[in-house]
């Protein structure tokens, strides 16, 4: 078996706010293997967001080691972190974070604009179209975010996260702004991606949503409280099928 995508060794992050130091993460050791689907849970202030920011190379730990795909992240500068994010990571946010007044296709092309070496215009277009097709939005290329539903916007964001073929997709409360059916659909999409080999780490505070994942990590006070395998994950695809059937029955009667 290949090396884990993520290896954390005694990782800690302390913030200095107004002369007071706040230890958001205090010594986390963790391995995430390729192809895993992990939920990170915890109350607010448990340190899960800080952990995600660090995993996402948006922030540097104050102590410990972080190996992303075998490469040490600690000590890299802003430029190198940006390059790592561009090549190895994809982000999905609670509030979608799409560029307004920018078409779905152009939003998906965004990470490729910053890729090194440069990706040709034509290849960018082709890859963006393919990514949108993969998330089921083949017909919505020219729509602006404001013309799309929340679920569709999140699909665009997922397509954007996938388009540079990352090692790891990080999702921060991806269903937080969505209704329950759309949430199931998005989780279904994640499960599909995971089934095709993509490694996913998702922050959520809802146990319902975490139940779709294969592994659930619970954090409290900056430390890992529990780290369990979910032997029986929910299947989004089956649930959607059941919902559709129920709907059809309802309309028949």
């Amino acid at each position, binding site marked *: 078996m290949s090396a884990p995508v993520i290896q954390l060794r005694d990782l800690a992050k302390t913030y200095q706010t107004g002369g007071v130091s706040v230890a958001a993460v205090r010594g986390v050791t963790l391995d995430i293997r390729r192809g895993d689907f992990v939920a990170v849970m915890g109350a607010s202030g448990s340190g899960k967001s800080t952990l995600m920011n660090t995993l996402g190379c948006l922030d540097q730990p104050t102590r410990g080691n972080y190996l992303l795909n075998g490469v040490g992240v600690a000590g890299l500068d802003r430029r190198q972190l*940006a390059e790592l*994010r*561009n090549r190895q990571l994809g*982000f999905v946010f609670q509030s979608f974070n799409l560029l307004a007044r920018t078409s779905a296709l152009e939003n998906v092309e965004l990470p490729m604009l910053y890729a090194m070496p*440069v990706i040709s215009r034509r290849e960018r277009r082709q890859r963006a179209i393919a990514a949108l097709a993969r998330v089921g939005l083949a017909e919505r290329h020219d729509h602006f975010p404001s013309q799309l539903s929340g679920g569709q916007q999140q699909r665009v964001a997922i397509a954007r996260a996938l388009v540079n073929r990352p090692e790891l997709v990080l999702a921060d409360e991806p269903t937080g702004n969505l209704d329950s059916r759309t949430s199931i659909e998005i989780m279904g999409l994640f499960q599909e991606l995971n089934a095709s080999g993509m490694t996913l780490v998702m922050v959520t505070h809802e146990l319902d949503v975490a139940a779709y994942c294969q592994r659930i990590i619970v954090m409290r006070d900056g430390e890992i409280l529990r780290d369990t395998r979910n032997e029986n994950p929910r299947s989004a695809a089956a649930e959607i099928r059941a919902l559709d059937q129920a709907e059809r029955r309802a309309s028949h009667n």
Partner: protein
Amino acid sequence: MFTTLQVLLLQSWQTFFIALRALRRNKLRSGLTALGIIIGVAAVVAMVAVGNGAQASITKQVAALGENLLTVFAGSKRSGGVSSGLGSASTITLADVEAILREVPDVIAVSPEISSSAQAIANGRNWSTSIVGESPEYLRIRDWKLAAGSMFTEREVRSAAKVAVIGSKTALELFGPLNPVGQSVRVKNIPFVITGLLETKGAGMAGQNQDDRLIIPYTTAMKRITGDRYLRSVNLQIRQADRMEIAQAQITSLLRQRHRLVAGQSDDFNIFNQKDIADTVSAVTGTVKLLLGAISSLSLVVGGIGIMNIMLVSVTERTREIGIRMAVGAQPSAIQLQFLIEAVTLSLLGGLIGVALGVGISVFVGKAGTFQPVVSAESILLAFGVSFVIGVFFGFYPARKAAALDPIDALRYE
């Protein structure tokens, strides 16, 4: 494989389109921001054009005095502390003129001048005009042409003939639309035959109307009009522009010697050098031009500050966008380039429209005014260059601010 430079160029090119799109999204704001630069550049281009035009117009007037012209004026007469002005003293005689011709080889043409004012009567009308005595060479010295007829001759000068050439203004007043050549005009009861009509010359350097005059042989003027053996002035043409100084010095020492002036005694004559006047005028107009340019450049700086202000607002407003771009892997340098290019595009766009506006204003001034503004390629290039530099200069700080944002904070920004 791509070299680093190619990658940089390609990225700049892509970033340019990102920037252009951002500007298009905020058309009104972009337009208003560029307006500062538009006005500044238009002002610079128009003002420099007006300055150039004014300079060309004045230079033309100076040149119209005649090429390589030296004028020796008799000194001013003083009586009881009252100075009567140049040419009023009785110091220069025809003998002086002959001496100058003999001793100063660079003098190629000479015209002794006597000037007086008198009533001219002809065609049943009368008109007060300048009666100016000159030699036939006067027209050549002043680079003046005849519209009709011919100049009086050297023989007519020697015989003090009663002939005259008439200025266009005087001709109009006395004869209206009639051709004055061959007509008779009476001055102080002496009938003169008009042999030629002068072309219109326009106002002189002092604003006097040069076309209101009657030019007669200087001998005739001395004998019959002033009854005087002294000259008001002598117009001299010098062989070459670079001999003007030498000729002027030679004439000065010659006249001092002839007038028996000892060292320490001031000259009893004054020499006007057309080149000196031209130099002075061009120095003055140059200064005015510089001043106009400097004042209008100030508005460019104000425009630049406007750009900086809007870019700072834009960076704050688009903090989240910056966060998103950073999250998906934009290098800080790419963010900086994006905002820098936005600022430069704004200012260059303003420069482009400003040049068009400035040229338009210049054309308008040319149509409305008395002289033609000259739009120079240099001022257009300069305005462009300056607006580029302003874009870079005033865009740099906001762009750096954008690039220095922390991605986490930027993503969280509401």
